[in-house]
């Protein structure tokens, strides 16, 4: 019989912090359900769900939340955990939709470090748990609109990006924040092909980054992010096309120059820096006016295409960011 000494236990087998942080939130969550029964309403135009809870030391076991009755502020049903975790793009693991689920087991999301740098007063290199410490964790039920004209509704778990921007304290001259994904072809075999320029780069204008709808997610469906969804931490910007949501982030850099994001670099006539969801601005090769909403109402023979909404339905919250900007030019 093999008895392992504590020193033999790899750090990857120790309960990751986000797991027990995830558990904590259930307390807030059950309270939320008991109190109102509705997870909708509240903060940002009803886009937020659940009760926020500051990450405090609690380890109580709480029951799994029942997601079946959860809806968006527009009454949309959630996609299943299976949909979310078996059909997505993450070219670091292959270009087919089922490649990430098949190949992402190679990724080692812990231990993980994130480097904060560039034009800020408080740069640093953080372990994952230290990095997310200022974060106000909560569930966020968001629509996700892929640039390929399909969409899902996904219950992320995370915190406003603003929380970690404030800690970094960007200089007045900083205008953008740039993110990079891990570069390691051993863990990410898709990086052996040159289909994109690696590592994956994304970025936001600082006002977009500070917007309360913009979050860094560490979980989905009340669990840690599966590797294929961008473990251990990824960006979610719900009013932009999915490719803005950079996954498995290892760095965050404040800059004066607009970041040169990977898809823009790959085909700047088709993908821009802004990538705001906009039914009026078509992709050069296909229409963005409609989208196929995958999920409970989408089967083999019938999957209705629904009209795409300006800013993915978050127009009331974010339109102000783009006053005076020609969205056809800055797509």
């Amino acid at each position: 019989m093999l008895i392992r000494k504590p020193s033999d236990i790899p750090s990857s087998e120790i309960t990751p912090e986000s797991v027990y942080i995830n558990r904590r939130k259930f307390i807030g969550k059950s309270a939320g359900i008991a109190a109102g029964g509705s997870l909708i309403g509240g903060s940002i135009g009803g886009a937020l769900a659940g009760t926020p809870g500051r990450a405090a030391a609690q380890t109580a076991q709480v029951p799994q939340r029942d997601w079946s009755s959860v809806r968006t502020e527009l009454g949309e049903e959630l996609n299943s955990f299976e949909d979310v975790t078996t059909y997505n793009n993450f070219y670091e693991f292959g270009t087919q939709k089922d490649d990430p689920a098949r190949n992402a087991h190679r990724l080692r999301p812990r231990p993980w470090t994130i480097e904060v740098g560039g034009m800020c007063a408080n740069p640093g290199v953080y372990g994952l748990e230290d990095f997310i410490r200022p974060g106000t964790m909560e569930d966020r039920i968001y629509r996700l609109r892929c640039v390929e004209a399909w969409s899902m509704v996904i219950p992320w778990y995370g915190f406003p990006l603003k929380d970690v921007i404030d800690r970094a304290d960007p200089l007045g001259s900083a205008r953008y924040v740039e993110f990079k994904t891990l570069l390691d072809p051993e863990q990410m075999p898709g990086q052996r092909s040159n289909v994109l320029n690696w590592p994956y780069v994304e970025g936001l204008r600082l006002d977009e980054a500070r917007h309360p709808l913009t979050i860094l997610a560490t979980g989905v469906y009340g669990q840690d992010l599966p590797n294929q969804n961008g473990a251990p931490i990824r960006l979610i910007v719900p009013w932009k096309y999915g490719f803005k949501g950079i996954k498995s982030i290892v760095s965050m850099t404040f800059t004066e120059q607009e970041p040169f994001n990977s898809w823009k670099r790959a085909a700047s006539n088709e993908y821009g820096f802004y990538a705001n969801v906009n039914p009026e601005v078509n992709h050069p090769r296909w229409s963005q006016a409609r989208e196929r909403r995958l999920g409970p109402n989408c089967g083999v023979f019938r999957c209705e295409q629904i009209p795409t909404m300006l800013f993915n339905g978050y127009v009331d919250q974010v339109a102000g960011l783009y006053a005076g900007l020609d969205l056809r030019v800055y797509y």
Partner: protein
Amino acid sequence: MSKKRRVLLLKGLVWLLGLTPGVWLVWRGFTDGLGANAIEEVLHRLGDTSLIALLVALSITPIRRLTGWHILAPLRRPIGLFAFFYLTVHFLWYAVVDEGLAFEYIVEDVIERPYIMVGFAAWLLLIPLAITSTKGWIRRLKKNWQRLHRLVYVSTGLGLLHFYWQVKADTYWPIAAITVMVVLLLLRIRRKKPRRERERAVAAQRPRQEPLAD
């Protein structure tokens, strides 16, 4: 084994291979194996199958020429018809299932999206070829039959362009397919051999000229 039996056997094989992708899709459909975006998965696999069948059909003649396996000749028609079958289902799947016969969207797609337009053209071009694939039509059209059926190259080319234009960034498979097509075309162009060799090839073919059961 007599030649007739061998041809029959090969044709059986073509039917088996030709039906497999369709049966596989139906099986996956019944076992919930098509993923979250089942409609698109079916659409793409039908398109793939049709292009592969077209390229295989186009490779029969060069293979015959390189290897002397003229027994393959009668396989061109069933393979080509399988390609047309999958392409037709591909188009119907798009129009009926995907778009729900919303003509305004279909017309807009065909007119405004070049990749859909060329795909649509590839299908249209194959229709007369499928219709005239019978022995009766071969007889009636005589020399023109072969001219007409050269359209299969145009159709396949358009199909490959359609494939290439609809991928987002990973052009590996479209380029692989286009490469196959280019090689097949080069093999055709290279056909002009010195006369002596040509005569020898004709002589070698002569005894095989008896009509093959199609």
